[in-house]
Structures are given as C-alpha cells and as structure tokens.
C-alpha cells in the first residue's frame, strides 16, 4: 500500500459523521458574501445597493491576477456593500443580500440528469473555471484557473485528485464519493482533458473501503482514471506528501508541484468542476460536515456559501452544547478556530467542528526533553525543536538556513510533542519573520 516516505502521525480518525447522508441546508433570510473567499486579492464588487440579483449571478469580479470570481448564492436585493467581520473577527469587503425567493440564473442547468460529454477545448475549460469562480476546496482555496494554466516550458504529467481526507472528523469528501461518484469522475475527466495528461490518480486512504470500491467501480467506465488506495497516515492529503505517495516524486524546496509534472486538486474541486462545466453552476455551495464527539447528531450538508455559522448551528443542532470549548472550521489538524459565529462561511470551508471544553484546551507546556519526536513526525524532514529555539532567540537567519520555509504547517510536531510545546505556532511565527526579513532585504 502506498504512502509518503517520511514522518507523519496517526491521530484518532473520528469519522463519526461518515454515515450521515448529505442534506440540503435551507437558505437563510439574509446573506453576507465575502469578497475574498480565495487565496489572493479580494474580488471587486460589481453590484450596488438596491440591485436585484439571482442565484449564480456574478457579484464580485476577479480583477487582479491571483483572484477568483464571486457569485451570488441567493436571489434577492443587495442591501449594502461594506466590510463584514469574518470568522476571525477581521473586517473583509462583503456584499449583503436580503433573500427574496430562490430564482436561479436561466443558464444554470438544474435538472438531475448527468451529462457525461464535454466538447470544450482545454483553453475553454480553463476560461470557464475562471468564469465560474472555481477555487481549490482542499483548504488553500487556490484559484483553479491559475492552477490549470500550465506555465510555458512546463509540462503536466500527472493529475492527482486528493480524496485522502486525512484530517480527523471530516467526511464531506467521503459523502461526495458515496453519493456523486459519477459526477466526480466526469469532473476528473474534464480536468484531465484541460491538462492533457494521460492518467488521473484518485488517492483515497484505505480507512474508506466503501468509497474505494465505489470509485473503482465507477472509474472503470472512464478512460484514464486510476483509483489509488493509500495507507492511512496524516498528512497524506498535503500536496507534496500526496505527490510523493502516488508518484514517488519529491517537490524540491521552494518549487511548485508543476515543477515535477504534477497537478493536485481536491475531490470536492472535481465535483464543483463538473457542476461548473457541465451544468453552468458557479461555485455557490459548499459541502460541509457538522460534527463533534459530544453532539447529539452528526450531519453532512450542502450549504449556500455565505450562510453564517450561527445559521448552520441553529439548523443542525438548535443550539450549541453548554460545554462547547472550541469551534473549528476544517479538521482538527489544520483547521482554524472560529471566534465570530455571525460570520458567513466561505468557499473552501469543509466543516463546522464543535469541540468539547475538555478536548479544546491545550495542556500546559513543560520543558523540552529533546526526545526528537517532533523531528521523527515531521513529514518534511525538518527540526521543529530547533526552530522553536531559534525563533525564540530571534535567530531568524539561521532558521531560514535550516529550511524553515519548507514547513507545510501540518501540525505533526505539536501533535507528537510530549512537552506540549506550541511548535507549529512558533514555526509559523518564524516563517512570518523570515518572510519579513527577506522582504526587508529586497
């Protein structure tokens, strides 16, 4: 069974919402759509107060290079265009929409029929990805049209679809595979065509045997789709690790996957690509897991982007348990702790994970006993304990020499540290300082 070569940990999987079928979350009364839901510059709002919008209408246009279009997830009237606080309390440009009915753009195909044929040329596919505001749904929300425009002089050889879902708790990709295997395979074929690669590999961790079987069966009907079962190990879904697991190649320090001929996309992205290309449906919905060990029920939802955390919690749980200690958007290893529950969800959100008080607190830090567990757990072969010391003493230059920028912030070091040192935090701080230092030098 394939997996990546070095490091890694195996946190408790907790895939407790595995068997909850995807439900449709009702549309709330008011919607706030943030303009930067992706990596890069925020989109520029193209609607004004009082404008009527339909579901799927463009409301934020990508004007910068690193940017993605934003579409209205609801129909109604634009109430105002002004900053809104995001999940971390920081103000971001946004469009407020009062929901009226549910009127979709006529161009969107809402029939349940599955369309297999795609006649578009690769260039047209990429243009349509841009038009539909597709971004990577694995967490980084990298605009898809940039990823699938292979730069001059480089050649893509592998398309790898990340269905590892190595993060604990998350089950949205699993549910998509179980319920929409065919659509996913069509999406993968489209992406394969856009890149012009012979084969696409779908990497699935072998703790999802049903999904592997289902995808394998479906993949047989398609040309050039290979399902690759992977040994369970975190961070299997990290881009560099997944490339290593599937192809055996290693992305060199400071390089991109395309430099070794690989393009990696998330499974959720493949599904949204299908909807965008075949059904003309922009990225206006997320598939979201609502889970937590102490919750009375576990859910997977299809949610309009812009629904607030409070709306989601209210609909799925009624109210939060009294002992809630932490709410995480994403998985427990790389997800972000949310502070502002009035904030809207954005593209790339994959879960609302409710943690109990007891599991939410970090244990107090003790002295480093130089056990080297962080080093053995690091999938990039770095020395987290050393970074911790260097950053603390402001020896930024040395931290850079020890390749601190190679860190993928997967959190394996903190996870395995018996002294509970916040190593991942320290490394992030160090990376920021290194970047600031490099910027200052320029």
């Amino acid at each position: 069974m394939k997996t990546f070569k070095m490091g890694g940990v195996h946190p408790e999987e907790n895939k407790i919402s595995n068997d909850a079928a995807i439900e449709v979350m009702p549309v709330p009364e008011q919607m706030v759509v943030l303009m930067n839901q992706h990596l890069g510059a925020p989109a520029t709002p193209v609607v004004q107060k009082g404008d009527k919008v339909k579901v799927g209408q463009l409301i934020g246009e990508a004007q910068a290079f690193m940017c993605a279009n934003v579409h209205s997830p609801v129909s109604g009237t634009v109430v105002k265009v002004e900053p809104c606080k995001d999940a971390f309390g920081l103000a971001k440009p946004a469009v407020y929409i009062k929901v009226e009915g549910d009127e979709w753009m006529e161009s969107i195909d809402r029939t349940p029929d599955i369309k297999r044929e795609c006649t578009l040329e690769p260039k047209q596919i990429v243009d349509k990805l841009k038009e539909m505001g597709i971004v990577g749904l694995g967490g980084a929300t990298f605009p898809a049209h940039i990823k699938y425009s292979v730069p001059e002089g480089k050649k893509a050889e592998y398309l790898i679809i990340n269905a590892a879902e190595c993060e604990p708790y998350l089950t949205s990709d699993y549910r998509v595979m179980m319920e929409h295997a065919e659509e996913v395979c069509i999406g993968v074929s489209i992406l394969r065509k856009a890149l012009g690669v012979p084969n696409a590999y779908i990497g699935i961790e072998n703790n999802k045997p049903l999904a592997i079987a289902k995808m394998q069966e479906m993949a047989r009907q398609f040309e050039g789709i290979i399902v690759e079962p992977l040994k369970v190990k975190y961070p299997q879904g990290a881009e560099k690790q997944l490339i290593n697991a599937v192809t055996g190649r290693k992305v060199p320090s400071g390089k991109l996957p395309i430099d070794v001929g690989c393009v990696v996309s998330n499974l959720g992205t493949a599904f949204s690509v299908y909807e965008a290309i075949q059904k003309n449906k922009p990225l206006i919905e997320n598939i979201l897991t609502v889970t937590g060990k102490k919750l009375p029920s576990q859910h997977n939802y299809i949610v309009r982007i812009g629904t607030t955390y409070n709306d989601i919690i209210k609909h799925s749980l009624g109210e939060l348990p009294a002992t809630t200690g932490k709410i995480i958007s994403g998985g427990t290893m790389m997800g972000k702790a949310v502070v502002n529950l009035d904030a809207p969800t954005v593209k790339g959100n994959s879960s609302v994970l409710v943690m109990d008080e007891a599991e939410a607190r970090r244990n107090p830090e003790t002295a480093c006993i130089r056990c080297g567990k962080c080093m053995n757990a690091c999938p990039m072969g770095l020395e987290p304990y050393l970074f911790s010391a260097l950053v603390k003493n402001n020896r930024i230059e040395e931290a850079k020499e020890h390749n601190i920028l190679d860190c993928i912030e997967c959190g394996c070091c903190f996870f395995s540290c018996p002294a509970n040192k916040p190593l991942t935090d320290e490394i992030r701080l160090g990376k920021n300082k290194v970047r600031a230092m490099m910027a200052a030098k320029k």
Partner: protein
Amino acid sequence: MNLLNISGSPHVHSDESTKKIMWRVNMALIPALLVAIAYFGINALLVSAIAVASCVLFQWLIEKYILKVPSTICDGSAVVTGLLLAFNVPATVSMMWIVIIGALVAIGVGKMSFGGLGKNPFNPALVGRVFLLISFPVQMTTWPVVDGIFPMNFDVTTGATPLGAFKEGALPEGVTFMDAFLGHIGGSLGEVSAIAILLGAAYLCWKKIITWHIPVTFIGTAFVFSGILWLVNPETYMDPVMTVLTGGIMLGACFMATDMVTSPMAKSGQLIFGFGCGLLTIIIRNWGAYPEGVSFAILLMNSVTPLINRWCKPQRFAC
C-alpha cells in the same frame, strides 16, 4: 455559553507527555529491580528506596528554595534518576548513606545546576555514580556475592565481579553464560540480569520511548570490538559474549545511553552515539585503570551529543 477557545492549529494532541514517558521508564526498570531484590535481598530494596527518596527530596528542595519554580517532582524524572543511581551501586549496607551523597550530586550538580529536566548535558545518574566511584572507591567496588535467592541477612559476603576478577587475572570459576544472562553474578544492583533489562527495554521499544538504534549499536560495537580482541588473544581478552553480559553494558545501553535528554535526536546521530559508547567502553575496560568503563563511555559521548546533533540532520524531504 463559555468563551470560545482560540489557538492556531492543530487542535488535537497525541496525549503523550513527559510525565507518561518518565513513569513508563520507571515501569521498565521494575523487572531489573525485582531481580536485584531476589539476588541481593533487602539491601537492594533499601538502597533503591533511599536513592529514589533522596533524589526526589533534593529536587523538591532545590526547586522550592533555590530556583523558586513550581515543583516538577511529579513528572517522575527524579525517580528515574534515583532508580538508575541505585542500579549503579553495589547493594551493600554502607551504600545506604553514600547513595544519599550520590543523589545530591546527581540531582544538584548533574541536573538542577543546568536548569532542570531537559537542560542537563550529562546523564544525572551517571554523574552521581562517577562522583561516588571516585570519592568512595572502596565502598563502590565492594560487591556482595550472590548467595541463593532472596537472602534476608544484611551482612553478606563480598567478592569480585566477573569483570574485576578478570582484570586481576582470570574469570572466577564456574560463571556460565546462563548465570550472566539471568543475573547470578556479582555486580552493581541493577546491572546483573541481562534478561530483566532486555525485558524493560522491549517494553520501552513497544511504547516507542526508545528505538533500537542506540542499544543495538552500543552492544553490537562492544561485541564486535571485543570479539576481534578475543580472536587476537583469548588469554588476555575476555570473550565477547561474556563482555556484553557482564558489567553495565546492558543497563547502560538500554537505559542510560538512551536517555532522551542526553542522546542525539536524529537516527544517524544515535548510531554514531551507540558506536562511540561501545568503542569507548571496551577501550576503557581493556586498557584503562578501571575494570568497568560504561559510565565513562556514556558520559564522554554525552559531551559530544550537541556536536552530533549539529552534524547529523534528519534527511530532508526536499533538498
């Protein structure tokens, strides 16, 4: 509702802790302690109890009155030091007060003077042991002779260890490999029984507290090097099996050279460390003034650990 907790990712932890590691090491030392009690009787129990109690007490006193920091005696590291110190001294009546001095040196000089757990460059128990060996050479080399199982009397007859006897001329009559393996030989309290030590080491390996790298290279190097010497001249040099089974090689390789704080972190560094320990042990045993060289070998290698750490880096994912 409570206030929400906020932190950077990750939000889960393996639940591994220093405390758990230290208490597991203590667990792993229990088989050797039981064997010691079986062979050396009540003396072994008393020496160990006194060593542990005084180590914990000294750490508590130093933390409370000198460093003025919250006490960390619960993490079990002082207990480990105490047990290892006791394991490295003979189980005799006179040791019962000498070991208190050893505990003071081990904890006070070997550990707390550097700032406590995690900051000491040398294995504290060995610092205490070597201090005692140099300060109390007679008491430290008066070994009780194993006399049946669980002797209840305090006044035991004394004799030489196999290593000591060999240094003087020849192995004592009738010591077989099986005796050495089970521990039916003279020696320090905890080092006699190879099987009990290996049992503990296996437990530590299972719990992923130690890896095979240091013990295997340490014992392997000692075995190969002494084997070469033995092949050259079986008259002057001890045979390799007896070499690794007697004295402190087993205890040192499994419990003291593998001390996380004072050994290298990278696997490649651990191999160098184990090799150095094995080599130095045999050199000291054969050409040094002392019949035993494990403590010195480990301390010497401890001193180069920072250099090894600097030199031996883990393999990078992407170079």
